C-alpha cells in the first residue's frame, strides 16, 4: 500500500476570495486517507454563506468512501447557504461521485428498535410464558407420538433406541462412576469427623446409604446426563433444523418425532435408572473406603449396618425419580433443539438454554418429590 507516500492523506483547504471561497481538495480521498479530514470538513460547514468553488483537480485517488465524504460535505455546505460549483474533477472521479450521489438516498439503514425497561421486562415475561406453553405442547405432541407408536410397534425405531442407549448410557459409565465414587468419599469424610466425636462411627453407613441412594446418586447422574446428552440432543436437532434436514425428513415422510425424539426419550428413560443404580453402587463403595480409612469401620461391619439402616423403599425412591428426570432431560433437549432457527448462533444459544433449563427442572422436580414422599411417609 502507498502508506508511506506523501499524498496518502486527503487534504482540504478553504481559500477566501472576493466573490466567496475556493475549497481546494487534494491527496488521496480513500478509506485510509479520509479519517483526519472528517472533523476538518465539519468546521468548514459552519462558516458563512456565499458562492463557493470546490476544486477537485488535485485529488489523486477517490474511492466510494471518499466520494461519499465529498458528496456529504457539498450537501452540508449547500444547506448552510453556499452556492456550490464543482470543478476540475477527473472524469473517472466525476463518474464515481455521480454514482454515489445517485445511490445515497436520504434514507439510511433503519436502526434496531430500543425498548424501555418496562417493555423489556414485559417482553421477557411474555417470551418465557410462550416458551413454557411451547414446552407443554411439545410434551403433548410427543405423548401422542408415543401412543401412536405403541399402537403400531412396527414404527418404533429400535436401532435408533439402541444407538442412543449406547451413547447416553454406556458411554457415560466412566464419568458417572468416577464422580459418584468421589461424592461417596466426600460425604463419608464430612460425616466422619462429626460421628467420631460422639463415638457413633458405625452410623456412617446410615449417612452414606441414605444420602447417596435417596438424593445424591439420582441427582448427580441426572445433572451429568443433562450436560452430556441433553446438550447433544439440542445441538443435533438444532443443526438439523438450521440445515433444513428436519424439513427433508418431513418431505420424505419420516416424522421427525418418531426418528429424533421418541428414541431419545425411550433410551434415556432406560439408561438413566440403570446409570443411577451404577452410581448408587460406586457412591456407597466410595463411602465404604473412606469409612474404613478414617473411622476404622470394616467392610463387613459397614455392610451389616447398611442392610439394617437402608430400607428397600429408600433405594426405590431414588431409582423411581430417574425415569422422570430422563424424560425431562430428553424433552427439554429436543424441544430447545427444535426452537433453533436460522443461524449457527441460535444453535449455540438453544444448547445452553437446554442444559440450564433441564438442570433447573430436574432440581424443581426433585424438591417436589421430597415434599410428596414426606407426605406419604416414605
Amino acid at each position, binding site marked *: 500500500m502507498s502508506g508511506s507516500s506523501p499524498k496518502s492523506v486527503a487534504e482540504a483547504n478553504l481559500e477566501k476570495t472576493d466573490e466567496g471561497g475556493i475549497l481546494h481538495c487534494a491527496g488521496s480521498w480513500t478509506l485510509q486517507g479520509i479519517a483526519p479530514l472528517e472533523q476538518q470538513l465539519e468546521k468548514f460547514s459552519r462558516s458563512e454563506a456565499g458562492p463557493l468553488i470546490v476544486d477537485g483537480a488535485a485529488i489523486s485517488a477517490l474511492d466510494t468512501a471518499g466520494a461519499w465524504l465529498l458528496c456529504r460535505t457539498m450537501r452540508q455546505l449547500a444547506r448552510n447557504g453556499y452556492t456550490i460549483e464543482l470543478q476540475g474533477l477527473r472524469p473517472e472521479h466525476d463518474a464515481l461521485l455521480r454514482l454515489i450521489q445517485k445511490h445515497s438516498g436520504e*434514507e439510511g439503514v433503519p436502526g434496531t428498535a430500543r425498548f424501555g425497561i418496562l417493555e423489556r421486562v414485559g417482553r421477557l415475561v411474555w417470551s418465557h410464558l410462550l416458551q413454557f406453553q411451547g414446552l407443554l405442547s411439545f410434551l403433548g405432541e410427543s405423548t401422542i407420538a408415543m401412543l401412536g407408536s405403541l399402537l403400531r410397534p412396527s414404527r418404533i425405531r429400535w436401532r435408533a433406541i439402541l444407538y442412543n442407549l449406547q451413547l447416553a448410557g454406556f458411554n457415560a459409565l466412566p464419568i458417572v462412576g468416577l464422580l459418584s465414587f468421589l461424592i461417596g468419599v466426600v460425604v463419608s469424610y464430612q460425616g466422619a469427623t462429626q460421628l467420631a466425636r460422639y463415638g457413633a462411627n458405625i452410623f456412617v453407613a446410615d449417612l452414606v446409604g441414605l444420602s447417596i441412594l435417596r438424593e445424591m446418586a439420582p441427582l448427580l447422574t441426572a445433572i451429568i446426563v443433562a450436560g452430556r446428552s441433553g446438550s447433544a440432543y439440542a445441538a443435533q436437532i438444532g443443526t438439523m433444523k438450521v440445515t433444513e434436514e428436519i424439513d427433508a425428513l418431513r418431505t420424505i415422510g419420516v416424522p421427525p418425532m418418531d426418528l429424533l425424539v421418541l428414541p431419545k426419550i425411550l433410551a434415556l428413560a432406560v439408561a438413566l435408572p440403570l446409570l443411577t443404580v451404577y452410581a448408587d453402587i460406586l457412591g456407597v463403595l466410595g463411602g465404604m473406603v473412606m469409612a474404613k480409612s478414617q473411622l476404622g469401620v470394616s467392610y463387613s461391619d459397614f455392610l451389616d449396618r447398611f442392610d439394617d439402616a437402608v430400607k428397600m423403599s429408600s433405594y426405590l425412591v431414588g431409582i423411581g425419580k430417574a425415569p422422570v428426570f430422563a424424560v425431562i432431560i430428553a424433552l427439554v433437549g429436543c424441544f430447545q433443539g427444535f426452537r433453533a*432457527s436460522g443461524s449457527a448462533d441460535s444453535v449455540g444459544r438453544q444448547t445452553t438454554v437446554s442444559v440450564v433449563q433441564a438442570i433447573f427442572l430436574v432440581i424443581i422436580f426433585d424438591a417436589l418429590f421430597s415434599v410428596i414422599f414426606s407426605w406419604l411417609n416414605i
Partner: protein
Amino acid sequence: MSDAGDTIIEISRLHTRFGTAVVHEDINLTVKRGEIFALAGSSGCGKSTLLREIIRLQRPDSGTIKVFGRDVHRIGDDEILELRRRWGMMFERGALFSALTVAENVAMPLHEHTDLDDELIDEIVAIKIVLAGLPASAGAKYPSELSGGMRKRAALARAIALDPELLFLDEPTAGLDPLSAGGLDELVRHLKELLGLTILIVTHDLDLLWRVADRVAVLGDGHVLGVGTMEELSKSEHPMVREYFYGPRGRAAREQAWNRK
C-alpha cells in the same frame, strides 16, 4: 510499489494433490488489471480450489501464486493482511455472519481496518448496501431473514466494503433464478466500470460467462484447457472445451448472447 505493472494475479507451475487425486497439474495463468477474468469448468475440476489457493485459504503443493506482485504463500502474516485489505471475496453461499445484521456484516471490515467514526461508517455501509442492489431497509435484517438472491447481494456488499482493487466472486449466480442472476451480471459489470475493479469469477454459468467475462480460462483434468475470450474459446478444437460450449445448454447461452448483441 512492486505491483508488477498491469498484471494483478500471476500463477505459475501450480500443482495441487489431494492424497492421490491430482487437482492441478502445471497451471499457468495471468490476470490483468481492470479485466473480468472467469475460471470455468465442470464441477470438481478444481476451480474453487484454485480460488482458495489464490486467497491463501489453502496451500498448493508446489508452484507460485503472485497477487499484486507478491507471492501469497511466501509472505508473512502482516503482509498477507495488507493484501487481504486490497481484495474482497464473496463466498458461494454468502458466508454472512449469522449473528450480525446485514449492515453490521458490511460494517465489520470497516470497523476492523479503518479509524473512521461510527456515523461515517454507517453512511458508507448504507451506500454499499444500495450499490449492491439491496434496499437500504435490508440493512437491519439478519441473513436468515433474506432470500437467496438478497443474501448474495449482501455478501457482495461486504466484499466491496473496503473498496478493494480486486474482487473474487465464487459462483455469484449459483442457486439464483434467471432474473436475479441476470440482475447480478449487470451489477458485476456496472461495479467493474464504475469502481475500476479487477474481478475474478469462478462459475459454471455459461450465461454469465458470455455476458460479463472479458477472458475465460477453462479448467479440466487438472490443466488449463484454454484461455481467451468466449468467442476464441468457442472456436477451440479441444474436445472437452467443445463439449463444454457446444452441449445443449452451451449452445442456448451462446445464441442468447448473440441475440443480445
